[in-house]
């Protein structure tokens, strides 16, 4: 099985937010929750770059390590998923996540944040694949249909890449070689302990 990852080529990202919108639409994500977001670094200054960021589906994921009820699990493809039936909404995953991926449906005073929601790599949850129960909790399961995450599929400049980590890293390296520069494989060092070459 391939080890799937996300890679955002910040030199291509034009901050159009299509990935954000596509994700919200595909999974009918409720108001206030953004599974994916675009952050612009050095906004308005020379050398500004935008990075589309969501759950990076880390190797040895910090969220899974700190969850008090152990509601996270990894698929054979390396996708980090969680069970909303087990989640108690404590917020620990949010404190541990380097990428701010976990989201909560309520502005949680008295700790009533509700069940955590995050990017599923379009791979649903523990329920049977592509069932209404799975859709209601986790959104579409595109992976089960043999499709890649909608955010990367929609990306107009092909800045956001999804798929086999080795292949997308190779594509990125080829781009860097050809154009002669690259601002890095954002988050890879943190998520996969990879050296962000190029």
């Amino acid at each position, binding site marked *: 099985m391939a080890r799937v990852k996300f890679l955002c080529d910040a030199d291509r990202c034009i901050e159009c937010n299509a990935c954000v919108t596509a994700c919200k639409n595909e999974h009918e994500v409720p108001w206030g929750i953004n599974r994916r977001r675009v952050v*612009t670094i050095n*906004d308005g200054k020379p050398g500004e770059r935008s990075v589309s960021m969501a759950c990076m589906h880390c190797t040895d994921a910090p969220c899974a390590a700190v969850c008090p009820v152990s509601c996270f699990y990894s698929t054979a493809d390396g996708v980090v998923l969680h069970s909303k039936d087990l989640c108690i909404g404590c917020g620990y995953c949010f404190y541990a996540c380097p990428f701010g991926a976990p989201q909560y449906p309520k502005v949680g005073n008295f700790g009533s944040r509700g069940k955590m929601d995050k990017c599923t790599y379009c791979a649903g949850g523990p329920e049977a694949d592509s069932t209404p129960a799975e859709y209601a909790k986790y959104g579409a399961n595109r992976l089960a249909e043999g499709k890649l995450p909608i955010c990367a599929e929609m990306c107009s400049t092909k800045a956001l890449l999804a798929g086999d980590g080795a292949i997308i890293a190779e594509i990125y390296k080829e781009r860097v070689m050809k154009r002669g520069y690259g601002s890095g494989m954002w988050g890879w060092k*943190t998520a996969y302990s990879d050296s962000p070459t190029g």
Partner: protein
Amino acid sequence: MALALCAGVALLLVLAHPAAAQVSFKPTAESVHEDQLLNALKEGGKITGRISIPDQMAASLIQPAGRDWRDFHRSKLPVIGGIAIIGMFVGLAIFMMVRGRIRIHDGFAGTKILRFASFERFTHWLTASCFIVLALSGLNISFGRILILPLFGAEAFSTLSAYAKFAHNYLAFPFMLGLVIMFAIWVRDNIPGKLDLEWLKQGGGLLAKGRHPPAKRFNAGQKGIFWIVIIGGSLMSLSGWFMLFPYLPANVTALQLWTVTHAVIAMLFIAAMLAHIYIGSIGMEGAFDAMAAGEVDLNWAKEHHSLWVEEEQAKGHVPSGSAPRAVPAE
């Protein structure tokens, strides 16, 4: 003509100069680089930018401090908690084996003296019962996954933890109320004084049988417990407040700090309360009466709080001497 041409070229050069300075920066190639940003981060720092969605917490792109927080919870906290709590259990067990139950040296007098009025006892048990639920539900969040989950399975443990979390969140409020009342009613008897130094020098009479350094209403040990509860409880309340209202700081670094504070103080607080529970129940004969019925045996009071008994007797609250109280005629 040639002169005009030269002037024209010169003018062009002058005009072109600022433009040339701008072109020397290549906006495509010279950009922020993740590696540089990560290396430039200070301890606990994060890479942040601008975001176009309302959630400003989402403006943080990468916060490597999350890994330190994870390391704290997975590696450091079990050590801190284990040493504090198991260490206290071991310490108390050794103390119990060596010293045994601390008896009333002169035996029961049979006469009782009122030590805690009903409102004081109510405050104590309000705070104490909340504390026990808070401590157990808190320990469940920290260690339940290792200790309890394997026993019950994921579903049952998750349900238990969800209820425990609700109990933790809501019982925090009566606990805080208890702290405030406790402070108000007992602070005047808990101001440290010279007598406490003497009490501490004699080890509180805990180690040698029959030795009881003089003490007023509260001895130095009890004053210590009082201040541990007040200061520890206040820190727990403050740090817990930010966890109850995580959108007040709206800053993941601050929240990480508050959760670490909450967890470390909790472990020390629980350990201290174990000692308090021990000495107030099985550890010392006659001590539990103070918080149960409110009245303690006069001999117990004389041994542990000699000066307080004298004060009470001076006020006429207790019959002097150890004769049993007269039984009213039927």
